């Protein structure tokens, strides 16, 4: 178990390094002057020149990179070229809505998806077919489109939830929940169907294994066989998928935050991309990568806890 | 019988696993197989019998010792030499279900030993494949079907046909009948004996079932934990085992005779077989007399 964590952590450093190098390489690939790209074609040349120097673009690439890296290690991710604020605090200020969204969405996906999957595996019949079909449909309905549909009906027509905006948890937990209800629903629908399908398949597989029959034949209770023994084994691939999904929800937040006007990391990154604000984007990439790594670590730990053979490997 | 054995294994040592945690699976095994002869290699799982087969065929690297086929040292043969060897040496596996690619027709699998052979054109290949199928008692049109359409016994016949399609001189079979049902098992055992009589190949026969080995083999080599504990004429070893391990092994096999089986089980319950490493008897099976058949 400890080895598993160490291996994961040992992998984090090189990963961040490669990610940051990639970001830098991309910028050096920009045709023409990045400063010109940032400021647009109408900006006066002296302004471009100033920005050019401010971004350190007159120095060789390796030097640029190293100085950025040294600063980044000290927590300084540079300054936004559009607002001039420091990137670190900017990102920190936008973390809460994004993390809230991911946390709630992952929770919803995990609980609802697993419950649906287990129920459909145990009951079978129409519910089982529904889960099978829904998993395909869920993949087909884009989350951002669903978000718009939800806004039209639940927010605009029936006024059940606010259409946009974010209420911090500290301000009002209920308001926080209400402001996140629609975003979470839009983000998690497709993922719920995917997790339900995986849980169903995995449960069906485990329920057909020999040890389940041996337990049945030797008179253990059905409840214990299904929920204590089978579910535990079946949960291993589900948790792995949940890790993948919650990492991919991270991507969905970019759109969802944008639509619901949540002041999160995703909408910040989209804004930065529109303004060609490279330092902010770099910071966002680093931050997102860190979150992905943490999610992966948690998923690994959960799997090792569920199945002793995973940790022993 | 020529003076030079078809297969000669001298002091074979095989370590498996990564360098530091390697375990010695085969520890100084020597044996020979002559043309037209069947040598049975017996042992329980972990005795190293399958590893010996894999080492002979170049599927597992050899740590020490030598493997000679027809007098030629092939212990560390390269890819090219191995490919040339495939004309002479073939293998049949235990599992008739995974030894044939389920997604390929029987004919496609059977033709493989002929693919890289010079002077065999596609028409000739078809003839040889049909002949091989006929030899193992299957209709020629089986070539157009998939492995899934055959039973375990039939698949083992197909595997035999594939091994023999290129007329090898040495056949290695790794537990070829232990996955089969009793009535089918006897059919395959007879088929192996018939084919050997017809084609005259040398046969290294690996099995855990002493009765089957005794029935099919001229000589028998008993392995325990990677070492040879007893070797000699198959009938003699079966009737009058000298090594305690061989005796324990024989006692452990339940014979289809209630009186003897019960007595053996009772004796076994009183005195389980020795578990420690087998003493080195210094047996050199090559020095043993050849069967008279």
């Amino acid at each position, binding site marked *: 178990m400890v080895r598993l964590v160490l291996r994961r952590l040992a992998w984090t450093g090189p990963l961040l390094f490669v990610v940051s190098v990639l970001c830098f390489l991309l910028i050096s690939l920009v045709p023409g002057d990045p400063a010109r790209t940032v400021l647009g074609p109408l900006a006066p040349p002296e302004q471009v020149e100033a920005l050019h120097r401010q971004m350190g673009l007159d120095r060789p690439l390796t030097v640029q990179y190293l100085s950025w890296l040294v600063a980044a290690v000290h927590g300084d991710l540079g300054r936004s070229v559009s607002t001039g604020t420091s990137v670190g605090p900017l990102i920190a200020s936008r973390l809460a809505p994004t993390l809230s969204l991911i946390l709630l969405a992952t929770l919803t996906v995990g609980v609802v998806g697993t419950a649906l999957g287990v129920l459909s595996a145990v009951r079978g019949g129409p519910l089982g077919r529904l889960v099978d079909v829904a998993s395909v449909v869920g993949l*087909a309905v884009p989350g951002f*489109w669903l978000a718009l549909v939800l806004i039209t009906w639940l927010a605009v027509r029936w006024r059940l939830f606010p259409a946009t905006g974010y209420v911090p948890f500290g301000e009002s937990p209920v308001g926080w929940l209400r402001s996140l209800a629609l975003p979470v629903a839009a983000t998690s629908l497709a993922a719920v169907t995917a997790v339900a399908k995986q849980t169903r398949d995995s449960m069906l597989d485990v329920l057909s294994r020999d040890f389940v029959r041996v337990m049945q034949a*030797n008179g253990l209770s059905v409840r214990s066989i299904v929920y204590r023994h089978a579910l535990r084994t079946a949960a291993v691939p589900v948790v792995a998928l949940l890790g993948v999904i919650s990492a991919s929800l991270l*991507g969905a937040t970019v759109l969802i935050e944008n639509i619901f006007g949540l002041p999160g990391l995703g909408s910040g990154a989209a804004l930065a991309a529109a303004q060609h604000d490279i330092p902010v984007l770099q910071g966002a990439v680093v931050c997102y990568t860190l979150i992905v790594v943490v999610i992966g670590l948690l998923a690994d730990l959960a799997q090792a806890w569920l199945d002793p053979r995973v940790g022993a490997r | 019988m020529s003076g030079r054995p078809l297969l000669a294994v001298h002091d074979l040592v095989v370590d498996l696993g990564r360098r530091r945690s390697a375990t010695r699976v085969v520890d100084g095994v020597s044996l020979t197989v002559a043309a037209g002869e069947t040598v049975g290699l017996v042992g329980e799982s972990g005795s190293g019998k399958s590893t010996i087969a894999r080492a002979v065929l170049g599927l597992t690297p050899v740590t020490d010792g030598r493997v000679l086929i027809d007098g030629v040292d092939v212990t560390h043969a390269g890819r090219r030499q191995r490919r040339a060897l495939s004309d002479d040496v073939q293998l049949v596996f235990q*599992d008739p*279900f995974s030894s044939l690619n389920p997604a390929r027709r029987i004919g496609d699998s059977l033709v*493989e030993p002929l693919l890289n052979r010079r002077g065999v054109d596609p028409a000739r290949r078809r003839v040889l494949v049909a002949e091989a199928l006929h030899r193992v008692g299957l209709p020629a049109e089986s070539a157009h079907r998939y492995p899934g359409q055959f039973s375990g016994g039939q698949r083992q016949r197909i595997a035999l046909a594939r091994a023999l399609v290129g007329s090898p001189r040495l056949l290695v079979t790794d537990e070829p009948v232990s996955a089969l049902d009793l009535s089918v098992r006897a059919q395959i055992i007879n088929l192996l004996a018939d084919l050997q009589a017809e084609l005259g190949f040398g046969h290294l026969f690996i099995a855990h079932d002493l009765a089957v080995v005794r029935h099919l083999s001229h000589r028998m080599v008993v392995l325990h934990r990677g070492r040879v504990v007893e070797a000699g004429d198959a009938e003699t070893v079966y009737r009058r085992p000298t090594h305690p391990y061989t005796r324990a092994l024989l006692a452990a096999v339940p014979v289809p005779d209630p009186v003897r089986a019960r007595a053996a089980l009772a004796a076994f319950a009183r005195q389980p077989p020795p578990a420690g490493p087998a003493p080195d008897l210094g047996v050199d099976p090559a020095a043993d007399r050849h069967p008279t058949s």
Partner: protein
Amino acid sequence: MNRPAAVAVRVLRRPLVLLAVLWLLLVLACALHPELVTGRDPVDQDLPAALGGPSAAHPLGTDRLGQDLLSRLAYGAAGTLWGVLVAVLTATVVGVGLGLLAGYLGGVVDALVGRLADLLFSLPAIVILLVVVAVFPGDVTIAMLTFGLLLSSGLIRVVRAATRSTREELFIAAARLAGLSTPQILRRHVLPRLRGLVIVQASLVAAIALVMQASLAFLGFGPPPPEPSWGGMIDEARMVIVRHPWALVPPGLAVALTVLSFVLLGDAARDGATAAWATTKLARRRRRSGRRRTHPTVPAPRHPTGSAPAHPVEPAPAGGPGHADTLLSVRRLSVQLPGGPARGARTGTTVVSDVDLDVGPGEIVGLVGESGCGKTVTALSILGLPPGDGQLTGSCHFAGLDLVRADDRQWRTVRGRRIGYVAQDPMVSLDPTLRVGVQLAEAVRRHTGLGRRPARARVLTLLRDVGLPEPDTAARRYPHQLSGGMAQRVAIAFALAGDPELLIADEPTTALDVTRQAEILALLARTSRERRLAVLLVTHDLGVVAALCDRAVVMYAGQVVESCPVTELFARPRHPYTRGLLAADPHRASRAGRLPTITGTVPAPGQWPTGCRFAPRCPLATESCRHAPVPLDRLGPAHAVRCVRPDEDRVAA
């Protein structure tokens, strides 16, 4: 291999798939020649008709500039498909290439590629894409190329895993021994195996790429405004969401339908590509595991619903030998697998027919036969757990209950408490995720109602009873940390937890080495003697029967063909099948010469002959054998045989 045309026909036979193909063709037609679908220009502004619903002039309505939505959809198709194509090609080429290399070569290459896949996977895709569109504004091709690269991590992993597992297959070793070179092996064996997998993955990549592309356009990183794109249309709809929600529908539906079509087509193509042999793949898994898989439903009360029993329960007509004091008495037990929606064979087939069987207290009865004869199905049916949701008829009297008609509450008093069960493969018959002691304690507490501590003490006693010298250590182990012999002892302890009177053991020693087998047999003999435990032992090994059993019941093709005391079985077998089996055993055969054999193989359920089921393989069969089913006749007080000529002593020559 499969002819493409045949595959296409098979695939298109499904209506949903046909619809998917038609839809994709329509989208493709739009991409190549949008003017064929609509006469309107996508940027033509018809302001008076702005924000209109579907009408004759505008079949799908208009947006806020009065642009025709149908036309914009049609003209947006080209960009959409192009982006998808770029992503799919990139992901497939990179994924299959690297996955194949890593999986087949292993070693350093594998480690490097594995790291690369991890890296690609850890990158937050959409943020990377935001960087890309920020650096290359408006360039869809580069964005989708990048996305394809990021998505290739999934393909790399899947292809690598599949290649690795294929590489371990015996047929690869066989191909290498046949002298094939590595490229030959890859082409002939590995690539065909991957085809279905790659098709499905590629269709998923297409689906995800389409949504991602729409997302980017929605965020404003698609083609610049007047130019139509599906994601851009959703963005435009958003601006008028309150006044004109209809505008959301056409682009949303277009995206959803296209994604659905990709997925459906991918699945269907995979099925089509593997259909020639895949049906048999399942059968192979079943054969390999040595038994039929149970239908994966949860135990539910299983009644022969409503229908009255087909036969009077007693007396057993021409039945097997009855015992005065029988513990278990099975009469005319038949098992029929239900006809299901599953394709092809085995629907509504009888797999066990009219089995009569008795087990006395403390008696060890062997249920003997080859695979496919129904002995395992019989054993599981006695426990009320027939494989594949089979329907039971007949009766099965045990402890005053007819088990065929027992309900859940009655089963609770029987399973584990009065009948224990041991399965063939000990390595998979324990829950892999829990310690041995925990599992045993659960069984003990369930059956005895003991508290935590006394249950724990009882577990240790049980483990000692089954011959584990250090029960403390054993109890703390996980199943994967046990050897085969130890695991089987634990499995026996599990079955003994409720102190049953009858143990049903299904090939308990088949997966073990001979010395381990002898130990387990000795353990079963001792346990039966000490606890006066009756055992129904399912086995194919006549030696095991000889060593352990008091009586034997021989099964062939779903029927009992002979039933007698073990001494009789070996001294005076009456059924030609029993004689054939005994003669074919190399233990009994003479050293020299050929083994006597039974020709042919056991017929599969559903292919049983009408008359004597053994007749086609029987050396003594005459015309009369083939006409009508042969009854199980009693020859003596304890001997029954299903043969019209049981007195013929000639054995197959």
